[in-house]
């Protein structure tokens, strides 16, 4: 019989807690430009290292370097900057609107703007995202009207979702943005199913799935990897690792070692990690993965390494579980500032134009907000009708719902 040790129970803990000095020394950040770029048709077995490194393009000096650089023109980058600035200003505005009681709830993107904004640029119209609640950049960068986003947030009479959905759980088929579920994870496997359908029909459109670091623990994550690898579905599966899941640090979902991207390796899926605060890197990696999908080369799993600077939602106060200044120490910096600095570096932008652009962006948002508020906010002005509550449960309203609507007197 073996010697028997007393067993010990292990619960992972973050390096620091409120009151401690922020410390990210355990996050290994490779220098920009150092991670190789495999051919788009490379075998996943030959790029396993990419699941343990971080692909980065922008260096400390704001230069774009290495094999992943060069996927966008300066004009395109300026566009990208504007998208990120817009998303950030939009968030600020809506956070305030929530505090003013104009809506019940809001979720912001602070620090993660590059992920969804840059990714959207690598997709074509017709492709379909299955997003979480923190990818509004896909809408902003895709040109979806902000006033419609606000109408949804306000649950007002012009809300495209008729007041039925929680704020920020947008849906736009036209803009390739699948109806967001409040249930974590569920849409990852749906993205794979959509991509399978596209392949079944011999279509050219691909799908993208989105999930948070914490939510990778959900079952749907596994189902998505199983189905995507089995049927080589034309799908890009994104993990947004923003280090936190409400109050829970990513170590609880990730366990003691490995990376989220590495979860793809056991399925033979191409898996990469990318600097999620580097607009250029996210775009380059997205473009590479999208091309793989389009060329029948199978799915890609992308871990976007980023940091949730803000609170989880308007119901959350992160100072209860992490140092207040933790975000300042985040080693990958701020995505807006980094892109801005790059554009200045290459002579396509300046501090002055940036300040001016900030003002313009704000004006546009205020204008949209005025427009939206004409249609009401959650507790005042125009509302979706109570009849809308009974519509759309089925294509045709069955008798029992008609009876109930009648009983409700509406």
């Amino acid at each position, binding site marked *: 019989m073996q010697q028997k040790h007393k067993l010990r129970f292990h619960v992972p803990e973050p390096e620091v807690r409120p009151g401690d000095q922020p410390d990210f020394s355990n996050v290994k950040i490779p220098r920009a430009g150092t991670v190789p770029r495999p051919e788009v048709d490379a075998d996943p077995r030959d790029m396993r290292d990419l699941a343990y490194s971080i692909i980065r393009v922008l260096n400390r000096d704001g230069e774009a370097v290495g094999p992943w650089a060069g996927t966008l023109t300066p004009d395109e980058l300026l566009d990208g900057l504007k998208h990120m600035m817009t998303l950030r200003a939009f968030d600020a505005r809506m956070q305030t609107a929530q505090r003013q009681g104009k809506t019940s709830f809001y979720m912001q993107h602070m620090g993660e703007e590059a992920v969804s904004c840059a990714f959207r640029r690598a997709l074509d119209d017709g492709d*379909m995202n*299955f997003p979480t609640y923190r990818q509004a950049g896909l809408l902003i960068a895709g040109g979806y009207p902000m006033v419609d986003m606000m109408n949804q947030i306000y649950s007002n009479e012009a809300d*495209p*979702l*008729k007041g*039925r*959905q929680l704020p920020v*759980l947008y*849906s*736009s*088929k036209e803009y390739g943005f*699948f*109806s967001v*579920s409040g*249930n974590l994870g*569920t*849409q990852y*496997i*749906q*993205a*794979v*199913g*959509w*991509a*399978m*359908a*596209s*392949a*079944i*029909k011999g279509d050219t459109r691909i*799908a993208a799935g989105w999930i948070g670091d914490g939510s990778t623990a959900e*079952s*749907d994550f*596994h*189902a*998505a990897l*199983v*189905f995507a690898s*089995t049927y080589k579905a034309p799908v890009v599966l994104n993990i947004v690792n923003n280090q936190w899941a409400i109050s829970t640090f990513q170590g609880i979902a990730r366990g003691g070692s490995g990376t989220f991207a590495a979860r793809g390796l056991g399925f033979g899926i191409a898996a990469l990690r990318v600097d999620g605060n580097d607009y250029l890197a996210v775009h380059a990696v997205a473009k590479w993965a999208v091309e793989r999908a389009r060329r029948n080369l199978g799915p890609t799993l992308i871990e976007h390494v980023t940091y949730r600077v803000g609170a989880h939602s308007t119901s959350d106060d992160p100072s209860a579980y992490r140092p207040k200044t933790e975000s300042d120490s985040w080693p990958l910096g701020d995505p807006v500032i980094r892109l801005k600095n790059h554009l200045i570096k290459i002579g396509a932008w300046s501090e002055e134009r940036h300040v001016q652009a900030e003002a313009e962006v704000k004006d546009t948002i205020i204008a949209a907000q005025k427009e939206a508020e004409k249609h009401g906010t959650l507790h005042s002005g125009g509302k979706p009708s109570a009849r809308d509550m009974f519509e*759309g*449960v*089925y*294509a045709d309203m*069955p*008798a*029992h719902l008609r009876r109930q609507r009648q009983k409700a007197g509406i």
Partner: protein
Amino acid sequence: MPRMTMIEAIRDAMDVSMGRDEDVVVFGEDVGYFGGVFRCTAGLQQKYGTHRCFDAPISELGIVGAAIGMAAYGLKPCIEVQFADYVYPAYDQIVSEAARIRYRSAGQFTCPMVIRMPTGGGIFGGQTHSQSPEALFTHVSGLKVVVPSNPVDAKGLLIAAIEDPDPVIFLEPKRLYNGPFDGHPDRPVTPWSKHPLGEVGEGHFATPLGKAIVRRQGAAVSVLAYGTMVHVSEAAAREAGIDAEIIDLRTLLPLDLETIVASVKKTGHCVIVHEATLTSGFGAELAALVQEHCFYHLEAPIARVTGWDTPYPHAQEWDYFPGPARIARALVEVMEAA
């Protein structure tokens, strides 16, 4: 007219639907090359190719979740869960997603799909091959729930379900696959080929969802049943010589309340029969509706004859199963109570 077992009728419904509509795809565990453990999809892969009928990994969540994505794309998946007892891993996808996508996206995205599952007991399948989970779906707004009791209906209803724009839970009473089991395990079962409802029209026909049918006219008591219990109830009424009107509900959600109410108002007595456990079974909803809508016509309390509130046992299958004797006793009791 061709004679079909329920298995053949179900297969034919998929065959007809796949033939007419390229967007219909069929998949599930063992349904592709092999044709399903009950053979319901046999031949479909050969006929329509692996891209229209294929094997899936053993993940009910994955099967339903992928089908939802396909439906959102524009396909019409008709998927199989190998036994209804194994649907729970997919429950979240069904309840939180399939059932709500039309509603929450205000119709931008929809979820036309059918989830077929063999259901019910009577085959000594123990707790994991015998369950009747219909009530866990009838509580979910946005779903439709169908339970056929014979080959003709199985075909017509399955075609209608595949063509329906919303998600349909299609429960196939496996004890009826090969014949109209009447609840007497000791007697041989007539094959469908000798039963009028085994005569199944060729080609395309759809039996509308949401319509019950009176299987047996009667004046003394109304029996509300579906699936296997339709046949068991018929046997009970016949054997006890009771003038029971037997209604085969066929669709549980949306329910054909009109047919039910008309019958109970006529007979003044009502017995509800299902295999699922009693508490919070679909019989509860039926009883609640009947007392609400027929209160002044009821001459006796509505009785429910159901599986007991235990997991489905193996050896005690026939003690658990609501057989003809128990149903007949309830019929007599309800009538004598008046």
